[in-house]
């Protein structure tokens, strides 16, 4: 049973303040400066500090791909990257793909092919797909499937994701 006489404990700041480090990132073309603890991941910096919640957290352990962003054009798991180590990098998130209100061809193809259901894995899938297309190595359907296997879709939209990527590949 709860003991109503026990007061809600309040912390007294006795330990030393967590050291903050300055980081400058270019996010979706905009330079952002942050004072950030060294243990903050790029994913949490985007979501909790910069309000860019389009990038998703599905595991925080590099197992699901929901947090995929483009770092200097290459897809990475942002939950496995510390923000302080990306000083000076160029980060593109799902929010930065559309141009002047026009969707990126991959985004449009995802809508047209119903390549998602709940939409939670979708930003990661799209960033991986954009990276995959610009990398240009995956050409066959089997290669695309293999390359996209780091992005789990629990809704099971995989065949539609492949169809969307194939169409976007043709368009680019």
């Amino acid at each position, binding site marked *: 049973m709860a003991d109503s006489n026990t007061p809600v404990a309040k912390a007294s700041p006795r330990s030393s303040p967590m050291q903050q480090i300055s980081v400058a990132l270019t996010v979706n073309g905009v330079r952002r400066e942050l004072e950030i603890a060294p243990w*903050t991941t790029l994913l949490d910096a985007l979501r*909790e500090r910069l309000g860019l919640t389009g990038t*998703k957290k599905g595991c925080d352990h590099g197992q699901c791909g929901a947090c995929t962003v483009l770092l200097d054009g290459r897809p990475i798991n942002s939950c496995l990257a510390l923000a302080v180590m990306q000083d000076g990098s160029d980060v593109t998130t799902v929010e930065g793909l559309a141009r002047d209100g026009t*969707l990126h061809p991959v985004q449009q193809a995802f809508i047209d092919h119903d390549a998602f259901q709940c939409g939670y894995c979708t930003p990661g899938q799209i960033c991986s797909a954009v990276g995959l297309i610009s990398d240009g190595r995956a050409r066959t359907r089997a290669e695309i499937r293999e390359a996209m296997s780091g992005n789990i879709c629990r809704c099971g939209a995989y065949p539609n994701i492949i169809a969307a990527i194939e169409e976007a590949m043709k368009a680019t």
Partner: protein
Amino acid sequence: MTSYIGTATSRIDGRDKVTGTARYAAEFGAPDLAYASLVTSPIARGRLKRLDVTAALKVQGVITVLSHQNRPSMADNDKAYKDQVAPRNGSPFRPLYDDGIKFSGQPVAVVLAEDLETASYAASLVHVAYDEEPHVTDITRQRYNGMALKAPAKPRGDATKAFSESDARHEADYFVPIEHHNPMELYASTAIWNDGRITVYDKTQGVQNVHGYLCGVFECDPGDIRVMSPYVGGAFGSGLRPPFQVALAVLAARAISRSVRLVLTRQQMYAIGYRPAMIQRIQLGAKADGSLNAISHDAVTSTSEYEDFHRNETTWSSLLYRSETAKYDHKLVRLDLPTGCDMRAPSAATGVYALEAAMDELAEALKMDPIELRLKCYSDRDQSNGLPFSSKNLRECYRQGAETFGWSRRNPAPRSMREGHEFIGWGMATGVWEALQMPIAVRIALTSNGHAEVSCATADIGTGTYTIMAQVAADMLGLPLEAISIKLGDSTLPQAPVEGGSWMAASVSNGIVTTSQAIRDDLLKLAQRLPGSPLKGRSGDEVVLANGAIALKTDGRDATAIADVMRSAGIDRIEREERTTFAKDDAHAHNTHSAIFAEVRVDEDIGVIRVTRVVSAVAAGRILNLKTARSQIMGGVVWGMGMALHEETLIDHRFGRMMNANIAEYHVPVNADVHDVDVIFVDEQDEFVNPMGIKGLGEIGIVGVPAAIANAVYHATGVRVRDLPITLDKLTRKA
């Protein structure tokens, strides 16, 4: 008029989802937001002896640590904790209530801090001592210690005797392990504090269920709490009941009078709910011509020590096939685990797996084609109660599915088909689910500028609810799709049931029809007041709303623009909220059906299994949206692949703890696992199930798929694996 219903309309929420603007429960904030992190129990049963929070409180940025010792008050009766879909029997789990430990992973303390990293770091500094008690978590050891549950149907005849006298017999055990939903979105709640009132953004399949639960647990007025869930990153049944994190987020907000966000880790989510493991024993007896004369289906499933959760695994074999005799038995075993919960097609995904794998074995014993056997036992009536189906086009599913798949080219002998170093196996199975609908209320506000807002407290968990609601409303109101906006996922909206059981499409669509008719009738009355109105003396049934106008149904002529009708009446808004209930149709059984065909390729040397082709032919009444419907079934097929080949939650019974509580070691299908999936919707008109003839699709997609794959693996390899998942080691183990 129908111009959107039945078409392949793209999701209206698609743009939000591909641009990252769709916001989920953890993505709402407030300036005073505090972050919560949980401390959970590593023991499965016992008591919390000591809690030492000294080190945690010393960390700068920690606000407080809550436990059962210092939490704000919570209700002290079971009724308050019983949500809409709680099991009837038992005492629901009360998070942070007292020192009792009921399962490994149970939250015992909540650390609150100014930022996320500080909260999780400080949680690691909370030291807890426990008094451990012996626990039991292994269903196989408790198989014969279960409590008897009421059978879903009365036995018919003497199945034991009939079985012993059958020309062909098959009898075996089938095992399905614990499985976890693992939606991609982590379970999360953000409680926004506003002067004692709280708005909670929650990951749920039923905002009003969570609302009622929170008002009960915290003994507060309905107006003090609002639950919002505009987007849900998958749930599959795990969001039907309020998970513990929503109670803890609200508890924490009340404790510190601030906004609080609590996001579970993937590991912590494993204590939310799961598909219970089950052991099933099936006996099938048939005459030489293939007609069944005995079905016996026994199931043993598990629940927690504190609640009786179960569904009827055996109900499906009681209704599907004609058989002279039948009997059923279901026992429930108590384990020191959290209570299980519904997971996509609860009881059918598992029960039909066992039945349909057994049917394949019987077909082999009879030297009969598996489809032929099923046609031989085909029933136009629900065998458990003798009622005819409101519609059942399963025959056509078999026919079209077989034709698309190329079934006639199958060589029935196992290990007879191969290409290169791979054996090829072809298997099939039947699927069945129930067609349900629930009472629901829908509000529509039509404005004279030709826009309509449709609202209902339902959810879109990826199913496409937003889109089908807009399609139905557009057609019923005679407006373009773009003129419809949908509001859902807010507990203050008109009443809706939880989104589950495949009942939402039918419920909300018929609900929109009812309210649209009320709007139509209002418009008709106004139109009839216009001088020389051609609609004078006409009833609501004789008119239609189409192309932004109200007109006679017969010829569509003499149309009057809705905007003109409203303007001349001097109003710019018509708002109606109507409740829809569904007449009980006791004269029929209501079900969806499917036929699934699967091709697997199995490596001859190392036993790697690939599912290279699946055809799913579905008879589910009227299909509202061909695009989202196809996706629903495809998703179900992918789930069936996971169930057949990948998914299994493993428990270390020495500790009573789930060992692979993450998404790397709990295997789910990835893109490379999924090849061609062909979905066929067989034409099925149903005039009895509900006025629109909708039967729902959320569950039927998975049912039968695990059996079709298991049967294909047997056909490829000649090895029957009856304990899921069929991993490659099981293909070579000695019996």
